[in-house]
Every structure is written in structure tokens, then in C-alpha cells.
């Protein structure tokens, strides 16, 4: 019988089976233990996903159109008791002098008590339309990036003479039964006749121009007076990167006598603010997720250590059956790693579900880097592996004779 004794082994599938059996011995405890990792990984995935989704939303708003756009608000009119327009008639030209301005124009929405636009003087009810009416300076049509479907836009000539001319949005024209401009069709706004001189196909920066009626600013002032509810404002189209500086300079350039009446704003600033807020919130939540993960790791370490002490008899038995110290160590390491892996898997799934729930509720498009979803269980397993190192070492160093006596 003397001779070579084959070495004792622990095959991979046996290791997996033994580790799984070890975990399933106390399923309740295992479930509670992986809760910490689950929460940590889950909140991590959810926060990263929501941050990515939110920045996707911001990205949608923050495009090149907005980066080249500034506003000037009529804060003086907002504070005055009587309706007024604080933009001078030559505001377009004054704004154009600012370096970096491509086009600028003043506009406001004209409000009527009832639907005011009709194709006929006395009007059949059927053709009356609740169309938005916008008063605009000629420069606005350029600043808004209007594209014509037909005819022409009104210009400084119409403006200075306060002529009754109008441009219609394409859908508004169709609604009013206007298909051709050849016969100089007329429409009636609040009973006043206007000649339709152009049809707008689209308006990049002010979409309402594409669906409503736009008339010269001076005409609106002459017929209906300054706006009572919403103040006039100026839209400025700038070169790329100039929006912020232009917004600062515009009030002085337009009203050097009293710049305080006007207030300039570059569009992305509000978006920027929102981004900053969400970034600091993310840092807070990520810290909390990190804490949850550390607590989860401590939980796994603790449970595994308790299991090592509790199962000393089993460890002694395994050693008597031929297990080497490393076989014992790797079994407990596998158990803790599996706990971390399962915690990571469940956490990642819950994180994705959370992201979906939030994005569906907010009508957002869910965005999540798939690498995060793959990395999450791996991170969980790594946490479990680290947490199991010390207990596994303790287990492998147990003397079999001592262990069997416990």
C-alpha cells in the first residue's frame, strides 16, 4: 500500500456547491447580509442613472440655439402701473450695434378677450380662430430665425408707417382658408383688416410665430396700445459664446438714459443653475450610497466571521476529511463573494427599476450607461471578496484538532 497518495483537492464545481450550501444553510441571515450591499449598489446605480438621464434632459435644452440667444426683459413696465413699452422704436438698431449681435427684435403677445382672428369682416363663427397674435419688430423676424413658405416679411417700411400687414403661420393660414397670396388676401384681427403679405414655414426660436399671426410692433401699439398683461421683451441672436456678454451690455446700449428699466439674461443660466444643484445633490447621494456599501461590507465581514466561529466543528471535520487550509479559506471567501455578487445583482436590478419609475413619472428618456449595469454586480462581488478576506484567513488558520473540539 505504500507509495504515492494523490493530493487532496477541491474542484471548482465542488467549491461552488459547498459555498452555495453554506449560504443556503441560513437563508434568512444571508438575505439580511446582502441587504447592505444591495442598498449601496442599488442607490449607486439609481443615482448615476438619474444623473445621466437628467444631464440628457439638460443636453436637450442646452443646444446651440440656446447658446446663441439672449433676452432683454422690460422690468420697468412690469413695475409701472400703466401699460408701457420701455424699448425705444429704434431698439433693433441700437441692439445691432453691440458687438456679437447677429439680429435683435422686440415682441409681445397681444391679448384679446375673445378669439379675434377671422377671415371675414363680420365673421362666420366657423372661420374664427383662437390664434395667438404677436406684435414684433422687423428685427425679431430675423432674430427668431423665421423661414418663409411664401410671400415676404414685413420690414422697416411697414413698421415706420404702422401699416396693417400681417404674416401668418402656415397652419394658421390653412385654418383661415388662405392658400395663395396672389390676391393679397385679408384677415380681420379684432375687427381690423390686415393684408397678409407672407406665410411662415417655421420659426426656430419662437415657435409660436409659426402657428399664429404676427403684426408690426408699431401697428399693434397704434391699434391696441402697449401690452397690459405680458411685458415686451427682446430676443437677441448672438454669435456663439457672446450671449452672456451681450445680455449684460444690452440694457445700457438700448436705454442709456435709464438702463435699470431693462434686464438682460442669457438663456442657459437657469439650466446651468439646475445642473449645479443636481451635481451637489448627486455628491450627497453618492456619499450615502458609499456609506451603505461600506456598511454592507462590514455586514458581510461580520456574518462571515460569525459563520467561521459557528462552523468551527465543520471546519475541523473538513480538515479531517483532507481539506487543506487553502480549501477552507477559499470556501469562506467564495461564500462572502457570492453574497456581494447577489447583493450587487439585486441592487443593480432595483436601481434600474427605480430609474425607470422616475423617468416614466417625469416623462423623461431613461439614460444609463450599460457599463454601469455590468460593473455593479462586479463591484458587489469585489466588496464581498474584500469583506471575506479576514474571516477566510481566520478559518484557514484554525487548527483542526482545536476546531473539532468546539
Amino acid at each position, binding site marked *: *500500500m*505504500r*507509495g504515492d*497518495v*494523490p*493530493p*487532496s*483537492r*477541491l*474542484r471548482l*464545481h*465542488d467549491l461552488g456547491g*459547498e459555498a452555495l*450550501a453554506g449560504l*443556503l*444553510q441560513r437563508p434568512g441571515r444571508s438575505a439580511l447580509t446582502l441587504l447592505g450591499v444591495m442598498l449601496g449598489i442599488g442607490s449607486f446605480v439609481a443615482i448615476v442613472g438619474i444623473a445621466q438621464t437628467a444631464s440628457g434632459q439638460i443636453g436637450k435644452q442646452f443646444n446651440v440655439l440656446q447658446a446663441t440667444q439672449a433676452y432683454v426683459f422690460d422690468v420697468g413696465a412690469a413695475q409701472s402701473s400703466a401699460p408701457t413699452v420701455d424699448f425705444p422704436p429704434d431698439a433693433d438698431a441700437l441692439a445691432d450695434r453691440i458687438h456679437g449681435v447677429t439680429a435683435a427684435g422686440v415682441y409681445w403677445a397681444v391679448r384679446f378677450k375673445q378669439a379675434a382672428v377671422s377671415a371675414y369682416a363680420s365673421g362666420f363663427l366657423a372661420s374664427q380662430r383662437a390664434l395667438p397674435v404677436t406684435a414684433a419688430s422687423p428685427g425679431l423676424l430675423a432674430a427668431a430665425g423665421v423661414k418663409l413658405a411664401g410671400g415676404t416679411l414685413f420690414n422697416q417700411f411697414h413698421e415706420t408707417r404702422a401699416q396693417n400687414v400681417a404674416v401668418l403661420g402656415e397652419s394658421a393660414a390653412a385654418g383661415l382658408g388662405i392658400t395663395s397670396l396672389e390676391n393679397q388676401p385679408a384677415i380681420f384681427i379684432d375687427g381690423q383688416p390686415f393684408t397678409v403679405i407672407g406665410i411662415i414655414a417655421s420659426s426656430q426660436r419662437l415657435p409660436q410665430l409659426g402657428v399664429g399671426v404676427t403684426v408690426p410692433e408699431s401697428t399693434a401699439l397704434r391699434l391696441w396700445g402697449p401690452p397690459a398683461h405680458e411685458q415686451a421683451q427682446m430676443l437677441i441672436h448672438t454669435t456663439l459664446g457672446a450671449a452672456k456678454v451681450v445680455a449684460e451690455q444690452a440694457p445700457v446700449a438700448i436705454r442709456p438714459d435709464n438702463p435699470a428699466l431693462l434686464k438682460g439674461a442669457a438663456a442657459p443660466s437657469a439650466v446651468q443653475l439646475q445642473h449645479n444643484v443636481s451635481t451637489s445633490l448627486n455628491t450627497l447621494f453618492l456619499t450615502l450610497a458609499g456609506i451603505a456599501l461600506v456598511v454592507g461590507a462590514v455586514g458581510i465581514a461580520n456574518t462571515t466571521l460569525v459563520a467561521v466561529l459557528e462552523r468551527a*466543528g*465543520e471546519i*475541523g*471535520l*473538513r*480538515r*479531517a*476529511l*483532507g*481539506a*487543506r*487550509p487553502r*480549501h477552507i479559506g477559499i470556501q469562506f471567501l467564495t461564500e462572502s463573494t457570492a453574497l456581494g455578487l447577489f447583493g450587487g445583482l439585486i441592487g443593480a436590478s432595483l436601481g434600474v427599476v427605480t430609474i425607470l419609475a422616475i423617468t416614466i413619472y417625469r416623462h423623461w428618456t431613461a439614460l444609463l450607461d450599460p457599463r454601469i449595469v455590468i460593473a455593479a454586480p462586479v463591484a458587489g462581488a469585489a466588496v464581498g471578496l474584500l469583506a471575506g478576506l479576514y474571516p477566510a484567513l481566520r478559518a484557514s488558520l484554525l*487548527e*483542526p*484538532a482545536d476546531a*473539532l*473540539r468546539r
Partner: protein
Amino acid sequence: MTTGGGAAGEPVIRLRSVAYTYRGPPPVSALKPTSLVIGRGEHVAITGPSGSGKSTLLNLLGLLDKPTHGTIEIDGIDVGAAPERERAAVRAHRIGFVFQAFHLLPYRTSIENVMLAQVYSDEPRRRRRAAAMAALAQVGLADRADALPTALSGGERQRVAIARALVNRPSLLMCDEPTGNLDTATTHELTDLLESLHREGTTLVVITHNPVVAGRAQRQIAIRDGQLTEHPPARGTRAFPGS
């Protein structure tokens, strides 16, 4: 070294001047220098009061501990000072253990407990169940293969443990107080089983302080204060103070 006892053949286990001293302070000599030979097929009982060094001897014979002096050979392989890798291999393939506390895993059935011994001996998976079933049949428990330990009586649990010790066909069966947790009737049953295993050729070393169990062995070795004496002395001295 001559052999004794009818079926005894070449030595399964040979101790040469083996001694064990617990490192102090103060150092305690748990086993005085001892030489001992156990031949193949022998049935040896080791008796002694607690604290006499029985457990130390068992741990040394079972390769669960290393002697501080001397050499231990099992099947002619010097394993006393061998690295753990080699000692674990010998435990897996050549030694079967039976403990007083059974040491069955509570969440596994009888056959799964038996099959645990085949994990480390690297028995091919497809052969495990049949071999475990054969071992259970050998101890008369084939019909309880799928029972959990909690559903077994004390005697049945110990028989499962014996099946687990036998499943790798070891050269040596080491029993540490195998009847310590059992009542008198069950003790008799179990002693009968051990005796039948001996008749079938298993080499048995039983550590016990039950005189009934010890009385069934061919050789009785007493241990007291770390000193071995054999009564009656076998033909040729097997246990004697070491050189």
C-alpha cells in the same frame, strides 16, 4: 518488529520515539517518547482517563497535529514532519475519522454527509453516489440515505459518520469515543458493527474509556500521564518507552 493478532500484516502505522510537548510557558509534556506499531487488520483500543494524553495521541495518529519529536509513518510514508499538503492528502485517502460528536452537517441528508468525504479525495462525481450508497449499506443504513440527521437516532447518526469514514476505503479507521454519546443498547450495536468491519479487514483504532468497547479489541493499550502500556503485552513489544 513482529506482528501480532491473527490477521495483522505489514504495519499500517508506525510511531518512532514520538513525543508531544505543548509549548509553554510552562511547556507541558502531553505524550512521552513513544514507539508503536499497528499492523494491517488489527483492532486496537486505547484507553485512559481524561487528561492522560489520549486526544494528543489521536491527533498525532490522525495527522491532525504534528509531533514535536519523532517520526510517524502511515503505509510506509513518513508523514510526521511532512508539509500540510501531503498530510491532508493522507487524511483524505488513508484515514477515516469517527468522532464522539458525530460532526454531521445538519442541513444535509445521510448520503450527502457521506459524499462530503469524496469532495476532498477527488472521487469522480459520477461515482460518488453509488460509492456513498455502498458505504451506507455497509453500516446497514441504505434505507435512511435521504434522511436528515435530525430525523436519525444517535446510533444511526454515528453509523452515517462511520459510512462517511469508510467511503474512501481508508487504511485506518480512527474512532474517538465513538460511543461516548450513545446509550448502552446502542453502544452494543455499534460495537458489533465495528467488530464486523474489523472482520471484513478494516484496521481499527478506537479511543474509549468504555471498558465494554475496549474489551472487544484484540489489543488494549492504556495511556496515563502521556505514557503508553499494553496489557497484556503482545508477543513482541509494541508499546514501550522510546529510545
